[in-house]
């Protein structure tokens, strides 16, 4: 197994690697196109897709603004329904609780549904380290677990592996016969995992939503592995980030409509499980105990920061990645950690520290497509700008590196030039003169910071006279 350490500061290297992978780029480009088209079609089908989108953004904003009160109501109702609600401040505490519970139950086998928050805390690795066999049961996650790799894409963790590669993997790790038929591979995984579903003592999932009104958690899937994980084992543990709560069941169904359409263009996923407490008396399946682990892990710090708060409105649909020009070219691996795409550019630095993910909030054009499409109403472009501000200021509370002195001096000088008309005129004239002397085309002498421009572009020929110069010579205007 692989303990997933963040590679977020390896960004430039990862980008280089991933951009060089032509096949992967084609896959990413095609997949993003398909996801965006499916999303647009499914929203177009709605009576008023735009209003529905805005409605969702409002729900998430309201929920986040009242978060602690809704969490209290959620806990109250979940407890009334028989669930046990546990609060964990960080990864260590959440894992410690879960391991200890598993040990108390004498569990040696655990089945897991796809859950980003559980990847965030490295739960699977902790369980395995403590002698509890743990299997991802979502087919894509199962494949990447066996391969010891990071998920490639939020929606399709292993879609970059060919049928042949998956076949070799299954053959190598599980002893399955090799095959070119993906149906056979899928059925082989089905048989293998059914055995685990039947034998596991613990099922672990995340939750797409936690409903305050009823104390329910809602889980969305297409395969059925989550239904198994929440129905077959005697104990179900759901790890839920504090931001997942929504006020009412009707709010939850509204968000559901946006979630599935944004994620895969489906009106609704094949299965939606609304779970309210463990099984009741007289029921023959379902868990005897349901533990809901409410996890902070840095979210309350984000909450306290007005500029960053809307990041918690995210519903983890993955649409921002599909519409992001950067993600579509570099892919998920380049983001180096659990979250990728625009929300990854925001969450990874906020959760890991700005200094640990310094490229993610710089390597963006701020085009704003993510914000336009986001059903949660996350203001990604402005959060990115705020992250840049904090990095420039060396904000220790966000674990930024020391303020970049050389850069600050550069921008200070730039400001100084812009603050006076004459200074601006002289400096810009000199600048243009230097550029003109060096000529059009590749300019090897461009300062390090700017030479990136000429790698694939010609330098624009600077004007002999600036617009200001031309305007000042009013006689020139008569000739126009």
């Amino acid at each position, binding site marked *: 197994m692989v303990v997933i350490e963040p590679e977020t500061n390896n960004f430039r290297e990862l*980008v*280089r690697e991933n951009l060089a992978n032509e096949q992967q*780029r084609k896959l990413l480009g095609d997949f993003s196109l398909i996801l965006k088209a499916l999303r647009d079609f499914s929203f177009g089908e709605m009576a008023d897709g735009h209003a529905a989108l805005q409605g969702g953004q409002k729900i998430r904003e309201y929920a986040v603004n009242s978060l602690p009160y809704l969490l209290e109501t959620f806990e109250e109702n979940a407890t009334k329904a028989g669930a046990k609600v546990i609060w964990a401040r960080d990864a260590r505490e959440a894992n410690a609780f879960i391991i200890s519970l598993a040990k108390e139950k004498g569990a040696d086998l655990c089945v897991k549904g796809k859950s980003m928050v559980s990847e965030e805390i490295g739960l699977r690795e902790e369980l395995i380290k403590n002698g509890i066999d743990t299997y991802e049961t979502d087919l894509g996650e199962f494949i990447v677990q066996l391969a010891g790799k990071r998920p490639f894409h939020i929606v399709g963790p292993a879609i970059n592996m060919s049928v042949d590669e998956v076949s070799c993997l299954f053959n190598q790790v599980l002893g399955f016969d090799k095959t070119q038929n993906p149906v056979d591979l899928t059925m082989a995984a089905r048989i293998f995992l059914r055995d685990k579903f039947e034998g596991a003592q613990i099922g672990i999932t995340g939750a797409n939503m936690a409903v305050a009104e009823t104390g329910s958690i809602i889980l969305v899937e297409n395969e059925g592995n989550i239904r198994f994980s929440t129905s077959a084992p005697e104990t179900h543990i759901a790890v839920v980030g504090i931001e997942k709560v929504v006020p009412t069941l009707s709010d939850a169904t509204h968000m559901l409509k946006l979630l599935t359409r944004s994620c895969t263009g489906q009106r609704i996923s094949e299965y939606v499980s609304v779970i309210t407490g463990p099984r009741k008396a007289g029921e023959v399946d379902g868990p005897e105990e349901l533990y809901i682990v409410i996890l902070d892990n840095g979210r309350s710090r984000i909450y306290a920061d007005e500029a960053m708060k809307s990041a918690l409105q995210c519903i983890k649909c993955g649409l921002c990645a599909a519409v992001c*020009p*950067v993600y579509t*070219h*570099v892919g998920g691996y380049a983001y180096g950690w659990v979250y990728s795409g625009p929300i990854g550019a925001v969450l990874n630095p906020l959760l890991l520290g700005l200094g640990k993910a310094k*490229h993610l909030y*710089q*390597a*963006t*054009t*701020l*085009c*704003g*497509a993510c*914000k*336009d499409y986001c059903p949660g109403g996350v203001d990604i472009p402005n959060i990115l*700008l705020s992250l*840049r*501000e904090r*990095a*420039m*200021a060396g904000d220790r509370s966000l674990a930024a590196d020391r303020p970049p002195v050389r850069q*600050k001096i550069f*921008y*200070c000088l*730039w*400001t100084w*030039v*812009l*603050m006076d*008309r004459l200074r*601006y005129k002289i400096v*810009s004239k000199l*600048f*243009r003169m230097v550029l003109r002397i060096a000529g059009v085309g590749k300019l090897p002498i461009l300062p390090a*910071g*700017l*030479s*990136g*421009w000429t*790698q*694939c*572009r*010609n*330098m*624009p*020929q*600077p*004007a002999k*006279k*600036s*617009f*200001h*110069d*031309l*305007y*000042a010579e009013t006689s020139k205007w008569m000739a*126009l």
Partner: protein
Amino acid sequence: MSDSVALFVPCLVDQFLPEIGQSVVKVFRRLGIDFSCDLRQTCCGQPLINAGYTEGAKQVAKRFISIFEGPDYIVAPSGSCIHTVREHYPRLLADEPEWHKRACEVSGRSYELSQFLVSKLGLDDVDARYKARACLHESCAILRRLGISDEPKSLLKNVKGLELVPLNDADVCCGFGGEFAAHYPNISEAIVKDKANNFQASGADILILGEPGCLLNIRGYISHNGLHGRVKHIAEILAGE
């Protein structure tokens, strides 16, 4: 019209693309718009904001506000510059109530060129003539930040001799992003390459857009790679051949 109009000259236009400024002037004169161009202006400070250098950005913002407080309309041939004034100035100066008020006032009078002509002056025909087959790239700041899409299209529809063809993924970013293009050149190249390919595939000879930064980016890529086609600012098309 009797309202005063001030020309806001983006620094990229001033330094690299003065012909865009000249085109705006030509259009204004043709329409009989009395305008001024305050030569004290330097830059709106967008690069400073994008870099997160707020102390500098605030100073530059205040200077801009002081210069442009008089006129009824402030018009720029750029969406990102106008977006900076509209959205970022009030935000930057939020904790200085007096400046915040002044920022909001200036912000409320700032317009991108096509929006000014169509929505404020009610003109979608500026008596322009430009013979070409062209397509329109919808720059991010103009389309998404300012919500402007119909205005440039209706202006271009009325340009005599201009044949507009669709551009695939017209609303997708061109990969400029200010310093992003220089700091993450390989990613920027990947994005602008798509844009250039779509331009080539459109069958158009000219790519029209409303953003000087996008223009430098796409034009620079096309000329470097010897591709077909020219890139023009919408002001140049409206000014005519």
